């Protein structure tokens, strides 16, 4: 797939369809891959990569990149296309300056999972036939790719690209039976005290680095409320447990109905806080309260918090309670 993508990128650069390519650039190790803009065939040859560790969702970079001169080629995985559509619906990206190539994804790997198996000192990873042969300074180890799959990919909602100009590989399908709300339901089934204890344990680790916010394709405000010194909310330090709660409630609330569940927030959290469980709660509630809604599936759809129905339930009413 990497070779095929590189070839198409070079062709589109050569025939002038696009003048830049937004993709992934290889790093020091097999897994530390950085999003990058390539301008020449040489740059692509030197660093372009597409493998199981290309986890970053590139769609948010288009907010900036699509406003530059010329057209840009972007490679989007299925879940990234939902973010793309959502950005489009919110007029945050300029569609006419973007050429989308959909690329298949069978689930991305999480190097933390390898490390949790005690695999350290990684110098190389050969990815083949569903297994990873991990070369380390302590000897080689073979791992099933499925065992190293990122948590978010284990409950992938869709392998279908909802938008593209061109598709490489086969079209996947929406998985209506994905069990992505399992953990939310598990939490809902707990007592309030247990839930409170669970979230205190998780949120108390927050270091307020803002990675979750900054990576989120739905967080594209010109100025975030948390960056406004007059809001009385400190941007960079959760001084008390209250502020930890406040930040995470508001962060999730501001993307409620807009979050496509791409899972980037949890992926980037340096403290491994399962932030997606907050977003998924909103998604699940919206589905239950106002009918099934998948942000980004249809750019023309009305956002659930931007509309209403006279027969809506009352706040605090119904549901599990």
């Amino acid at each position, binding site marked *: 797939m990497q070779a095929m993508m590189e070839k198409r990128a070079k062709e589109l650069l050569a025939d002038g369809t696009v003048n830049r390519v937004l993709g992934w650039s290889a790093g020091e190790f097999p897994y530390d891959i950085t999003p990058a803009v390539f301008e020449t065939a040489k740059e692509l040859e030197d660093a372009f990569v597409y493998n199981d560790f290309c986890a970053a969702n590139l769609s948010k970079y288009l907010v900036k990149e699509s406003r530059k001169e010329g057209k840009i080629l972007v490679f989007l995985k299925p879940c990234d296309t939902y973010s793309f559509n959502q950005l489009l619906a919110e007029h945050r990206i300029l569609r006419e300056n973007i050429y989308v190539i959909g690329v298949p994804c069978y689930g991305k790997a999480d190097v933390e999972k390898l490390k949790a198996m005690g695999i350290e000192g990684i110098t190389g990873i050969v990815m083949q036939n569903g297994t990873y042969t991990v070369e380390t300074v302590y000897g080689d180890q073979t791992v099933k790719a499925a065992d190293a799959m990122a948590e978010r990919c284990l409950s992938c909602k869709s392998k279908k690209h909802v938008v593209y100009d061109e598709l490489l590989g086969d079209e996947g399908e929406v998985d209506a039976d994905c069990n992505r709300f399992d953990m939310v339901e598990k939490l809902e089934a707990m007592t309030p005290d247990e839930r409170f204890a669970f979230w205190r344990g998780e949120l108390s680790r927050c270091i307020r680095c803002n990675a979750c916010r900054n990576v989120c394709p739905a967080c594209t405000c010109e100025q975030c409320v948390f960056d406004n010194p007059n809001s009385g909310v400190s941007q960079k330090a959760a001084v*008390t447990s*209250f502020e930890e709660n*406040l930040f995470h*409630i508001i962060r999730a609330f501001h993307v409620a109905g807009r979050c496509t569940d791409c899972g980037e927030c949890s992926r980037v959290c340096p403290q491994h806080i399962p932030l997606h469980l907050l977003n998924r709660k909103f998604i699940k509630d919206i589905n239950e*309260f*106002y009918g099934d809604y998948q942000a980004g599936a249809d750019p023309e759809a009305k956002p659930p918090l931007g509309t*209403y129905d*006279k027969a809506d339930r009352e706040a*605090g009413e119904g549901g599990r309670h």
Partner: protein
Amino acid sequence: MQVNEYKPKIVAFCCNWCSYAGADGAGSARLAYPAEVKIIRVPCSCRVNPMFILRAFQRGADGVIIAGCHPGDCHYTSGNYFTRRRMALLFSMLDYLGIERERTRVEWISAAEGAKFSKTMSEFAATVASLGENKRLEDLRCKQ
């Protein structure tokens, strides 16, 4: 020695066009409502964003109630319908985080419903009083 009875602090965000007038109505009809209820007038119930509610808790509130016009009667046509959706989600989230859901409430009270205002506030104050002090959304810095 006299033991101080616990009185919850309650913030009531009241829509200017109905519930605030409802509070007035309660006053002129000499219908009592608990003194612990502090009213903040807002132009419409949908002016209340989640941050207002959380900050009220931070600053010492034990309960927060939003009072707006009855659905269909919004001065701005549809504001309260949006309030309803937002607060449905927010309250559910607070519950999800293990924060007592009874500390937050939305009620529709018209300008003519002074009696309802008085009754609702008394009831809410009693509910909150039974929960005791807000501990889960408190900010220790703001405690004396």
